[in-house]
């Protein structure tokens, strides 16, 4: 589990705070988060990230999916067995879904850098 995913767990957040601050390299150090799409679902349906970070999605299914932001800020098609990237530009809660399979949805909590 990455630091990001752990810090998204509310009950742990306070206890974690000191660690996160100590480990945080400061502004401008964008990271790449790797998330998977598998079995017709976004595996990490509730991720947490910072503005400037990149998300690299891996599609482990045998059919294509899209990762489409409801506000239109990103929309990528990811073929079976391939990866696709989105750079997070805007702070806030980004909700996204798959245009091909509307039951697939997820959310990223994007914090300001």
């Amino acid at each position, binding site marked *: 589990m990455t630091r990001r995913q752990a810090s998204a767990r509310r009950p742990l957040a306070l206890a974690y705070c000191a660690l996160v601050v100590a480990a945080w390299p400061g502004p401008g150090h964008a990271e790449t988060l790797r998330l998977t799409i598998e079995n017709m679902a976004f595996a990490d349906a509730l991720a947490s990230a910072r503005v400037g970070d990149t998300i690299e999605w891996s599609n482990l299914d*045998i059919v294509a999916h899209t990762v489409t932001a409801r506000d239109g800020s990103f929309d990528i098609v990811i073929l079976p067995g391939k990866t696709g990237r989105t750079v997070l530009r805007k702070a806030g809660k980004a909700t996204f879904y798959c245009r091909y399979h509307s039951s697939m949805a997820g959310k990223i909590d994007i914090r300001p850098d």
Partner: protein
Amino acid sequence: MDILTTVRHAAATAFVLAAFGTTPGSAQPAPKPTDPQIAHIAYTADDIDIKNAKLALEKSRNKEVRAFADDMVRDHTAVNVRALALVGKLKVTPEDNPTSQSLVKQQDAERAKLASLSGSAFDKAYVANEAAYHGAVNGALETTLIPASQNAELKSLLQSGLGIFQEHQKHAEHLATLVK
């Protein structure tokens, strides 16, 4: 879903289920299919749904229905690419069988019926058939084809297919409530 749609849906489901020899009370249970037969049934079932979708793309002007048909062509084609690669790798020759033949015959008849409709009558009938057809194929996958498959890779491909087709079934059922 109104009563008429529900009745049509149930009738269509029973109709498609009969092809798999799984109709409740059918005289003899169908013999357990072999891997070459299962591969043939799975490929045929995908191919039929691609044909149904292509008819919808010729006839429908409804945006949601057309998007659904695009999804069906894309996903069922992708699954069949995998199926062909797998039978090639395993050196299995898919074997035609009464279940495949019955599915083809039924859905040929269904498409002939659909071809005579237009506008929202077509959209409603296409979507109802898609919900019923996916329901029947998913039922057959769960109760017959997946349990009967011997090769682990074939079983795993069928399981992936089931997950995809369950999403299609939900999508078709949802669409049925929107297409008036």
